[in-house]
């Protein structure tokens, strides 16, 4: 297993050590350690059922919603263990946002979708401030030009690609430190996918981005660091360019060259 500490001298936004996730008695993630940094987009790849989505969801404690889910080990956000007893999950999720596989905008207006987060967290003190936050978030998500004249229309009336960008704007609106993306493009057509990938490239640096993807080409295009998961273990982690041209582990090579299974 690659020793990732030497790989990245930059400071880690999220540091996971010895993380195991259990669903009841079944172990879905086995002793994974990894650092996530602001500077790089990190991609998690691996075959179906390897646990990459499970691990992603452990990073913002979305596994808490599943009965019988248990997390061992340590996950630190800016040095603070997110599973410690005093941690407020609501606050955590304002710092670690998530975008899901199937676009899921609220069945409310576009404005309301983006404004909901800042409003419940009390991030704005006036309507004007809220308007500003909404505009800024939509601009950063590359959606402003397309929807600025119809902010009161329902979010669900947009096309799939637009809906996903709306979900990204919604995640951005609370000014998170990390954005987790669980196969964000798998339900989208190639053009919408390309727009989202371009968006990810623009967001890099401002937010630490982790993307789970089934497409190796996407991981190769979009990320600078890639982690390969297999049967709940993290088999290899390294620079994307190296993983895809000269992986160290046999299992990684078999998977990315299509010799798996």
């Amino acid at each position: 297993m690659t020793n990732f500490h030497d790989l990245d001298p930059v400071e880690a936004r999220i540091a996971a050590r010895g993380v195991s996730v259990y669903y009841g008695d079944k172990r879905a993630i086995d002793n994974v350690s990894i650092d996530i940094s602001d500077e790089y987009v990190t991609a998690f790849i691996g075959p179906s059922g390897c646990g990459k989505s499970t691990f992603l969801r452990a990073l913002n404690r979305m596994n808490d919603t599943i009965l019988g889910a248990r997390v061992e080990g340590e996950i630190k956000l800016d040095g603070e263990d997110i599973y410690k007893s005093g941690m407020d999950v609501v606050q955590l999720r304002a710092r670690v946002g998530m975008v899901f596989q199937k676009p899921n905008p609220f069945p409310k207006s576009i404005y309301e979708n983006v404004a909901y987060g800042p409003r419940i967290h009390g991030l704005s003190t006036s309507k004007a401030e809220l308007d500003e936050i909404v505009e800024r978030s939509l601009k950063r998500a590359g959606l402003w030009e397309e929807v600025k004249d119809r902010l009161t229309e329902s979010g669900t009336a947009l096309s799939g690609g637009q809906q996903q960008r709306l979900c990204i704007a919604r995640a951005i609106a609370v000014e998170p430190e990390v954005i987790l993306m669980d196969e964000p493009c798998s339900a989208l057509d190639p053009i919408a996918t390309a727009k989202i990938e371009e968006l990810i490239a623009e967001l890099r640096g401002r937010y630490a981005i982790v993307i789970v993807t089934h497409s190796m080409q996407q991981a190769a295009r979009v990320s600078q660091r890639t982690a390969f998961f297999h049967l709940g273990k993290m088999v290899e982690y390294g620079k994307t360019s190296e993983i895809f041209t000269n992986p160290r582990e046999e299992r990684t090579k078999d998977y990315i060259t299509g010799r798996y299974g």
Partner: protein
Amino acid sequence: MTELSHQERAQRIANRLAQRHASERRFRALGFFAVALSALVLAFLLVTMTANAVGGFKRAELAFKLDLSGGMLQIDPSQLAGDNPASALETAGLRDVLQFAAAKALGDKAASELDPDAWRDVARKIAADPALLNTSFDVSLPASDDLASGLRGDGAPAMVALANDLAAKGQLSTRFDPGFLTRSDATSPQSVGIWGALKGSMLTMLVTLALAFPIGVFAAVYLEEFAPRNRWTDLIEVSINNLAAVPSIIFGLLGLALFLTIFPYWRSAPLIGGMTLALMTMPVIVISGRNAIKAVPPSIRDAALAVGASKVQTVFHHVLPLALPGILTGTIIGMARALGETAPLLMIGMKAFVATAPAGFTSPSSVLPVQIFLWSDEINRGFVERTSAAIIVLLMFLLVMNGTAIYLRNRFENRW
């Protein structure tokens, strides 16, 4: 199994095809007939009811001129503006004046067949328009029950003859009776009205809704979203499911034992009736509420949680609005059942004869289904048509109530 050639395969499919199409046609025919039969039965019910009810909205009335000129009625006009003008007019001798005028116009025999409460109609008229006091004006007053039966062709031959005679002279006829909707219960079918029961039903339904809806919805939300999954919550779930199937009369017994022990002086009040019916309606709302909440896709919940909403915020800002159409459907079903329930209300005593509409939630009252039940038990044939009319009123009320709920549900459904 060896692979079939294309012809063999096509042949096998063709062989089975006729059978499948026939079975499909049979099913469609069955479905159509089932629907047609139900529609026929419903149509039959409505037509019979309406046909009977038409007569219920009319009553036999005697028409004549009432001459009050010449100061026949000595009364201070200020008393007419007071609390009880009818009583004041009674003291002033309205009844005798009326009797006298009727005898003069119609004859003694007919005059004695004026409904005993007929004078109240006149009193009301005069109280509304005191200028009539010294004038001569037309009145159309309810005939007695015997005379009304006589007009229908029932009862003593002498009465029938009298009725026909008066009808021929144009002094006795059946007129549309809007007062049916504004009067309350009475002993005679001629002066009976549905308003008392209608208002009682309205008040009871309000109490039922005010209690069952919030408690039911919050219980559904708690059980579905917040309660831990253990043996106790399983037990509660099973209990609620069974409660919905309990015969309504048991709730009456419960109401009797519980509410009337605590508030014995409020027997027959819409408050008690409403509370009893709320007990009955709540399980239905909880069950449909839980199903509606379960049907909200987890993606919405995930989206809200991921943006940092707390559990409560997720439920109230996102899940409930989406579950509302389903909850409202359950409420409609529950309330419709509550509206038509007679047994529990009979048990708690909402069957008293109440001659005036209830003043408030704690006044003695009747409700529509109970009123219908009581009238249908009466010997006097005049009540038959009134009963049908009351049924129509009940159906109308149900229609309005459901219509409102469906409108509300559609309004919420559009946003989703």
